[in-house]
Structure formats: structure tokens, C-alpha cells
């Protein structure tokens, strides 16, 4: 994975109002942290970020005037409705030291188990790996064409480049598998007759015999009163 150069600017004002002002100007608020140094509040031009995302790389070389700092993209926040990028988290890195990063897993081919009535399910869409920044892959491409029914590709089967180790996942964890299709009912779910019409009440008293009838009688009483009132009128 290569470093993408991006021009950044310092952000003096903090908080919601200041961040909104930054976004109106076509820039995105960002924060840079890590390596035991104090956090730095930055802004990045929206077009620069779009260009960076298009490359598929996660490594950035931040340029602030004369200074340069290498970083990795840690988190991106989006507006849930407009999909606009609202904030970016960056982690300082040193190119000689190993880092932990999430790498996307992509699948190639059509599993042969699908023709036997199986369903392909991807369990892990990304895996956490540890390596030096230069060796970090953009994505791990897994060939699933040989996957038969009830077979799985596990973490230990992943095609890892040299110097890249998977962390936090167990070797037997499934990355993807082809399983027998579950029979899903097409009929609408209707509660069985005699089943509870209402949820059980937590801490509520269980209705004793005859209590339900009394309650029903109490409910009818106001109706009788109404009838009397109508008769008077």
C-alpha cells in the first residue's frame, strides 16, 4: 500500500459550531493522534479526501507547510442521510514499526456449492492484520470457486503476503462458507390459538380466577351509565 500525499491545515477553533463552519467551507474536520504525542486538530479539503478514497489506500502522508507526517486512516464518520463525510480520524505511524489495521476481504469467483442448492455467506468482510505500513495489502482476494456445500474458508486459509499476520481472529474462524439453505416460512406469522395475546408483565400480579370477569364487568359499567344518560336526554 502506498502513501498518498494530502495537504492539511491546522484547525484552531473546536466544537460543533466551528466544525459546521469548516464543513460549509468545503473542508472536513480531522484529528491526528498517536505515537505518544499530543492530538492535532486538522482540516482536509473535501476534494483531496475524495481523491484519497478513490485510490483505495489507507496510508496518508500529511503535509502541513514544510512538515510531513505519515498516518493511517482509522475512522471515517458519515452523515447517515446525506452520506457526506463529517469527520476523519488519523493515526500517526512510523514506517519502520508494525501497525495493526483492518484489511478488506474480497471474494473472487462463484462457489461450486451454489449449484447444489447451497447459500454463500461471507462472515468476515474485513480482518485485522499486523505488518509494516509498506507491506500492508489493500485487500485480501479469496478465490471461492472451489468451495463446495458445507465447506468453509477459514482465517488460516487466507492468502497473506509475506510479513503480514492476522491478529485477534482465531485460525479456525470462518471467513466465508457455503451452507445448506435454511427453510424460511413464506406464511405470515400468526400466534397460535390459546397463546398469550399480550406480553407478560415484569413484576406484575398474575390474574387470579374470577379477576378477569370482574374487570370485564367493571368495563361494562360505564357503558350502562351512558345508556341511562341517553335515556334521560
Amino acid at each position, binding site marked *: 500500500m502506498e502513501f498518498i500525499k494530502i495537504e492539511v491545515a491546522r484547525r484552531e477553533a473546536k466544537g460543533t459550531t466551528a466544525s459546521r463552519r469548516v464543513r460549509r467551507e468545503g473542508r472536513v474536520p480531522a484529528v491526528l493522534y498517536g505515537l505518544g504525542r499530543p492530538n492535532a486538530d486538522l482540516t482536509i479539503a473535501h476534494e483531496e479526501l475524495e481523491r484519497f478514497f478513490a485510490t483505495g489506500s489507507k496510508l496518508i502522508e500529511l503535509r502541513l507547510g514544510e512538515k510531513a507526517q505519515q498516518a493511517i*486512516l482509522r*475512522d*471515517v464518520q*458519515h452523515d*447517515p*442521510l446525506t452520506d457526506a463525510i463529517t469527520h476523519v480520524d488519523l493515526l500517526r505511524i512510523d514506517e519502520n514499526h508494525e501497525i495493526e489495521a*483492518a484489511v*478488506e476481504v474480497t471474494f473472487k469467483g462463484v462457489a461450486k456449492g451454489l449449484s447444489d442448492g447451497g*447459500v*454463500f*455467506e*461471507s462472515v468476515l*468482510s*474485513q480482518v485485522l492484520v499486523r505488518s509494516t505500513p509498506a507491506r500492508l495489502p489493500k485487500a485480501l482476494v479469496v478465490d471461492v470457486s472451489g468451495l463446495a456445500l458445507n465447506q468453509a474458508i477459514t482465517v488460516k486459509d487466507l492468502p497473506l503476503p509475506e510479513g503480514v499476520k492476522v491478529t485477534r481472529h482465531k485460525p479456525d474462524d470462518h471467513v466465508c462458507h457455503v451452507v445448506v*439453505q435454511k427453510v*424460511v*416460512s*413464506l*406464511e*405470515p*406469522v*400468526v*400466534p397460535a390459538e390459546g397463546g398469550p*395475546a*399480550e*406480553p*407478560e*408483565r*415484569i*413484576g406484575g400480579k398474575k390474574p387470579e380466577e374470577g379477576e378477569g370477569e370482574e374487570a370485564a364487568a367493571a368495563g361494562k359499567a*360505564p357503558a350502562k351509565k*351512558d345508556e341511562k344518560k341517553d335515556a334521560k336526554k
Partner: protein
Amino acid sequence: MATMPKRVKFRKSQRGKIRGVAQRGNEVSFGEFGLQSLTPAWIPANVIEACRVAAVRGAPEGRLFIRIFPHKSVTSTPEETRMGTGKGEPDYWCAVVKPGTVMFELGGVDETTARTTFNHVAHKLPIKVRMVRRRHR
């Protein structure tokens, strides 16, 4: 009546207001494609069930994830009832949905199938929705 909670602390709830946009449950987390609400609404349990049936019919080979649940009871008073006499009895259960909530997700299907299926599901819903894709970071 479709799904409802198994146990509740209170049978009846106040109406409340749906303010703002969804701050959680607003991303595709389980499948590859999702159906996101664009307007606030109460989605009744029978509508969720109708959506499930429509989605299973549309994509029988895929896996469906339903990410909303009817936690809220809605009461109603019978017709021709005089004013007063207290709050009505629970009529149905609904899910409170904010704009941005990903209500349904589909995995193991291609984009065309997902789009067709979600189009059928959208016809069952009383709100505006859109299809969203999982974000890979």
C-alpha cells in the same frame, strides 16, 4: 397480530416524539445491502411481517436481517365511546423508526436482486426509503 415483546414492564406507553436522525443502527452491519428509512414513522408489527414475507419471496437464496422490533404498544379506544374513561387498551405493537435507520439487510445476493427485493419491500412500508450498500473502510 405479528411479533411483540415477550415481557414488558408496562402494557401501555406514552406517544413520545420522534426527534432527529438515527445516531445508531444507521449503517449496514450484517448483510451487503440495506433498506434505510428517510422519514420518521411508527412501523406496525404486521407491516414488518409483510416486509419479511416480501423479502423472502424476492430473494429466497439470500439471507435477510430484520433490524427493527416492535417494542412500543399503541392503544386505541373503541368506536362510539364517550370521552373520558381513561386510556384505551393496547391495539397493536410498533417499532419507532428515525430517519437513517437501516431497517432490513440482505446478504448473499447480487445488487439487482437486492434492488428488486427492496422495491417490493418498500411498497409495504408507509415511509420513504432508499437502498444503501455496506461501507468498507
